[in-house]
C-alpha cells in the first residue's frame, strides 16, 4: 500500500443502500483495523465526483429508478474507473458494473462496463437464501440472501464468481461475475459479513499480499448455521 490509511469508497449510499449495504464497508474497515491497519470509509454522494484516489470502491443494492440514476451518475463522474481499481458490487451494484441492464419499463441503460455482464428482468423475483460454491478464488462456499428480478448473462471477459448450490444467482446456474479485480454478486446487502474470505480477498488485492487470518467465532457460527439450515431445507 502506498498510503498508510486504506480509503474505502461507499458509492452513492443514498440510492444504492436499500439492504444494509453500508455493512460491507463496516466489515472491511474493521477487518483492516483488527490487523493494525488504518482504514476510513469515504461516502461519495450523488452530485459529487468519485475520487480516483480511493483504494476500494463499493456499490450496493437499490431500486429500479435509483439504479438507473446511479449508473448515469457514475458513468459521468467516475472517470478513473478503468484504472484497475478494486471494486465490489452487490445486486443492483453488480448490474451497474455490467455493460448494460434493462429496467422494468423495458428501457435499456448503459452500465459502467467493468464487468462483461448484461441484465434483463426475469419472470419472477428471486427472494431467498443463496448458496454457491466458489470458482477457484475462494475455498469455502458463499452464503447470503438474494432479492432481485434480474437475470444476468456473462460475456467472454467475465468469469462467474461461483456455481449456485441453492437459490437463483445469475439465473443460469452461475453466480456473480469477476473481471480482474472487479467482483459483482447477487449475495446482497452485507454479503461480506457472512463471507469473510471474500472480504479478505478484496483486502489482499488492496494490500498487494495475503492478510493474516482473523479468528471470529461469531462469524464461523453464523456460517455453519446458515449453511446447515439451507442444506436441510432443500
Amino acid at each position: 500500500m502506498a498510503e498508510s490509511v486504506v480509503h474505502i469508497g461507499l458509492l452513492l449510499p443514498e440510492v444504492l443502500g436499500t439492504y444494509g449495504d453500508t455493512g460491507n464497508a463496516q466489515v472491511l474497515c474493521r477487518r483492516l483495523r483488527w490487523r493494525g491497519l488504518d482504514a476510513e470509509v469515504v461516502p461519495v454522494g450523488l452530485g459529487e465526483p468519485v475520487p480516483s484516489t480511493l483504494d476500494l470502491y463499493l456499490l450496493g443494492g437499490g431500486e429500479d429508478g435509483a439504479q438507473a440514476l446511479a449508473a448515469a451518475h457514475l458513468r459521468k463522474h467516475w472517470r478513473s474507473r478503468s484504472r484497475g481499481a478494486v471494486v465490489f458490487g452487490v445486486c443492483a451494484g453488480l448490474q451497474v458494473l455490467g455493460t448494460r441492464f434493462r429496467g422494468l419499463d423495458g428501457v435499456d441503460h448503459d452500465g459502467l462496463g467493468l464487468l462483461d455482464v448484461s441484465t434483463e428482468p426475469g419472470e419472477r423475483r428471486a427472494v431467498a437464501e443463496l448458496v454457491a460454491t466458489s470458482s477457484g478464488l475462494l475455498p469455502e462456499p458463499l452464503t447470503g440472501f438474494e432479492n432481485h428480478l434480474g437475470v444476468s448473462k456473462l460475456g467472454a471477459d467475465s468469469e462467474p464468481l461461483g456455481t449456485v448450490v441453492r437459490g437463483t444467482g445469475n439465473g443460469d446456474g452461475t453466480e456473480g461475475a469477476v473481471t480482474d479485480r472487479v467482483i459483482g454478486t447477487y449475495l446482497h446487502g452485507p454479503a461480506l459479513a457472512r463471507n469473510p474470505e471474500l472480504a479478505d480477498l478484496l483486502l489482499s488485492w488492496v494490500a498487494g499480499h495475503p492478510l493474516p487470518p482473523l479468528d471470529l467465532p461469531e462469524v464461523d457460527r453464523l456460517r455453519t448455521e446458515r449453511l446447515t439450515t439451507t442444506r436441510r431445507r432443500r
Partner: protein
Amino acid sequence: MTARNPLRTRASVAAGRLTAWLSRSSGLGRGGMIGGRVTLALDPRALRRLGRERTVVLVTGTNGKTTTSLMLTRALEALAEVAANSDGSNMPDGVLAALAARPDAPYAVLEVDEAHVPWVAGQLQPAVVVLLNLSRDQLDRVGEVRATERDLRAALAGLPGTVVVANCDDVLVTSAAKAAARPVWVSTGRRWTGDSTACPRCDGLVGFQGKDWSCGCGLARPEPGWTLEGDLVRTPGGRQVDLDLRLPGDANRANAALALAAAHRLGVPPHTAAARLRTISDIGGRYRTIRRSRHFVRLMLAKNPAGWVETLRVLDEDTPVIVAVNAQEADGRDLSWLWDVHFERLRGRQVVVTGERAADLAVRLCYAEVAHWTEPDPVAAIDGLPPGGVELVANYTAFRDLVGRLPDG
C-alpha cells in the same frame, strides 16, 4: 344508530365469531385473524357492509400503527363506542374481525398494513386516513417502500371525501398524501431519512435544509397546520397542548400529534384528546414492565432500522439489554437491516443476544465492537442476568412469542 346488516352477513359474522372462539380456546393462534379469514371466505362483501353507517378512521405507516390507533380509539371514546383491531391484526381479515366484534359501534379506528390500505379504503370509504411514516420493513416480503408509496398515492387520489392526516416531515408520506383532496399536514420532526434521499416522484435528489426539504421536480415540504415541538403540540388555531404521555420517546409524541389532529377532525378538542392519551401506559404489552422473580423487564418492540432509532433513545442507561431477533415470514426472512441499526450505541453495556437468529445479531455486534453473549432462549437470557432492571427489545414474532411466555404484570 344501529348498523343494519343483511341476514347473510350476520350469519357469516356469527360463524366467524365461533371460529375465533375455537381458535382462542384451543390455543391455535390469534383469534382475530382466523375468525376474519373465515368470514371473508363466506361473504366477500362483508367488509363493505360492516363498515357502512359508521365513521371509519384508517391508520397506516411502517411504525406506530398500533400505538396511534389505540391513542385515537381512546380519544374518540369521548364521543361514543369505537370498534378497533387493538390486537394489531392489521390485514383485511383482522380489520373485518374488529368490525364484526362491535357491530353497533358508530366509530371504527382500524390500523391497516400499508400494502392493504388501497383495497380496505376502497371498501370502507374512510372519513380519515392517518399516514404516519414510510420506511423499509420486511425487505424480502413487502418489497420496496417506493412501490407502496405509489399504490397509496393512487388510492388516496381516488378518495375525494377522505381527510388525510399526514406527517409532512416524511418525504414518502408527503408524496402520497399530496394526492389527497384534503390533506392535513402535521410536523412531527425528522429522524429517519435513510429511505427518502431519492425523490419518490422523479428519482432526483431531495435536498434538506433545517426542517424544510424539496426536490427540483416541485415536491416539497408543505406548511404544517399542526406542529410538535418538544412535548408541546401547536394547533392550527395557535393553541398549545402539553402531551405529558406515559409512553416514552419522541416516536410516541409524534404518534400523539397525529392522533390529536385526526381526533380534532372528528370533533374531539385537543385538550380533551390529550388528557385521554395520558391514560395509556402500554401498547399490547409494549413498554410494559413485567416482573419475573428477581427481574423487572421492560418489553419493547423494534422491527426495522427506523424503529431502532427510537428504541436506542429510550433505553435506560446502565441497564442490561437483551435483543431478540427472529426471521419468520411475518418478520421478513432477510436480516440485512441489522446493518442499518447503530448498535454501536450499545457499547459498554451488558448485552445478551437471543432469538432464532441470534447468530446474525452476534456477528453484527461483533463488527460493532459491542461485547455480548448469546443465550438462544429469551426467558433463560432474563434469568441469566443479575437481579434488577432489564431492557428487552424484540422484533415482531420474537416479541409475540415472548409475551405469551411471560406473566401479565
